[in-house]
């Protein structure tokens, strides 16, 4: 673990902040770090910035993320990692489908991807959309909101399906709510398009030994968090089951 000083805080939306650290990290898009908030908790966070600064984008959802939101430039956080297997570059025309904060691990991938890029960015409402200006500059961007406050009114998967009906893609990259990613998997399998998805599970050790984050025997922290569609299609827990802190199976 490295104790890192917060170099900069960017308020992205009313519920999202990006925290930049005073370190350079050799990492791949899709990899994550374990963030220790001393005396509070430790949580896994995907890297949203890798080049030109190391950063995480944090949605306020609970005690740990609220504590992170309360931190300022100069404060210290513990960082373990980077961990896990990130996204693999594939093809020359990609569709990126993000739901909510799921855009965070996709952002450095979109920046690095060489080829044609179409991004579907979905959020509950206009004010929760992340990285819109950055994405506009580097991709063809379609926005969806659940409430229709901007862009297409509906789910990101509906927009993705429309786009996939008109255009062919070599690869689909996705991150967001698991139900959304499951729907994307179905759409991709029907069309024979490869997909890579970044999964989330309750995580403890982060280093592949405690079994807390396993899905059908694959460790999200070590074998993932990014999994390929061929493997995802064999996982009957994907989109259905996850585990709580005690290891009890609960619905996704």
């Amino acid at each position, binding site marked *: *673990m490295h*104790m890192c000083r917060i170099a900069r805080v960017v308020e992205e939306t009313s519920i999202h902040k990006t925290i930049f650290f005073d370190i350079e990290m050799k990492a791949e898009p899709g990899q994550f770090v*374990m963030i*220790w908030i*001393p*005396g509070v*908790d*430790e*949580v896994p966070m995907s890297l949203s910035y890798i080049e030109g600064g190391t950063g995480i984008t944090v949605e306020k959802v609970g005690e740990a993320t609220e504590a992170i939101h309360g931190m300022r430039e100069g404060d*210290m956080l*513990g960082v*373990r990692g980077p961990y896990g297997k990130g996204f693999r570059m594939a093809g020359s025309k990609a569709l990126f489908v993000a739901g909510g904060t799921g855009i965070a691990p996709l952002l450095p991938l979109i920046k690095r991807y060489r080829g044609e890029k179409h991004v579907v960015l979905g959020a509950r409402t206009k004010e929760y959309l992340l990285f819109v200006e950055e994405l506009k500059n580097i991709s063809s961007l379609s926005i969806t909101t659940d409430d229709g406050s901007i862009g297409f009114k509906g789910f990101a998967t509906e927009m993705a399906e429309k786009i996939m009906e008109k255009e062919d893609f070599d690869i689909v990259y996705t991150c967001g709510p698991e139900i959304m990613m499951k729907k994307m998997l179905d759409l991709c399998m029907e069309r024979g398009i490869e997909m890579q998805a970044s999964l989330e599970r309750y995580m*403890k*050790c*982060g*280093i*592949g*030994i*405690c*079994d*807390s984050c*396993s899905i*059908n*025997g694959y*460790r999200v922290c*070590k074998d993932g968090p990014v999994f390929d569609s061929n493997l995802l299609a064999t996982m009957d827990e994907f989109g259905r089951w996850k*585990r*709580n*802190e*005690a*290891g*009890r*199976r609960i619905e996704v």
Partner: protein
Amino acid sequence: MLRVEIAGIKMKNPLMLASGILDLTKESMERFVDAGAVVTKSVGREERKGYKNPVVYEMEYGILNAIGLANPGVEEYVRELEEVGVENVIGSVFGGNAEEFGYVARKISPYVKAIEMNMSCPHAKRVGAEYPEDEIPDAVKEVKKAGKPVFVKIGMENILNRAERAIEGGADAVVAINTVKAMAIDIETGHPILGNRVGGYSGKGIKPIGIRCVYEISSNYEIPVIGVGGITRAEDVIEYMMAGARAVQIGAGVYYRDVSIFSEIAKELEEWLEKHGYTSIKDVIGIAIKK
């Protein structure tokens, strides 16, 4: 060449997966087809969420952890134990008293070849290393009633006394050692790192402690000993067996070399034995005691 037997349980090699490592789910356990046995996660009567993160901290010579016996409770957990595709499954159980131990043992017994009693978790209130020494025999007797061989896992502190109490209760083997009670503090902020502040230290750094404990137990008692602590290579297995261990367990080694450590060490063991003129690994057991 690598075959061993403990309390009537035949194993293709002496390498067992230690409790607490990738053994919460059936499909994870099934990644250890190359192990002689897989020990389950320690389970208790009720669901336990364990301690707050951080629960694991990687250090230069080992791993510090305080998971806190997180488990879904034995009734839920046995669903993971239906026809696990590995050679042998050993059920690890914990409890705060003989009755609780007995209850969990009876529930898990139909699914396992033997029961390992966790009486040594160094950071759990009452149920681990703090389990009163004089109550160990009664707990072992209660667990024996479940009808399976009983292994008792003990830690480095008062190890001979605790081994003797386990033997008194009728244990079929002792497992030594558990993690070593330890702590780490971040000096930038002054905060203890683990959510529970105190945890257990495992990995490379504790091997000499484990060797000493196995040697002392094997020198003083006839009971079979299963050695555990800091094994990452075939040479470590040989050393534990020379100290008297009949089999060994690997836990943190999975962190150092991942899941393939079992097949790799099995192969390395065969090579080592051949090179040193042994035809069976059983021939190295206890060599150091006779010197």
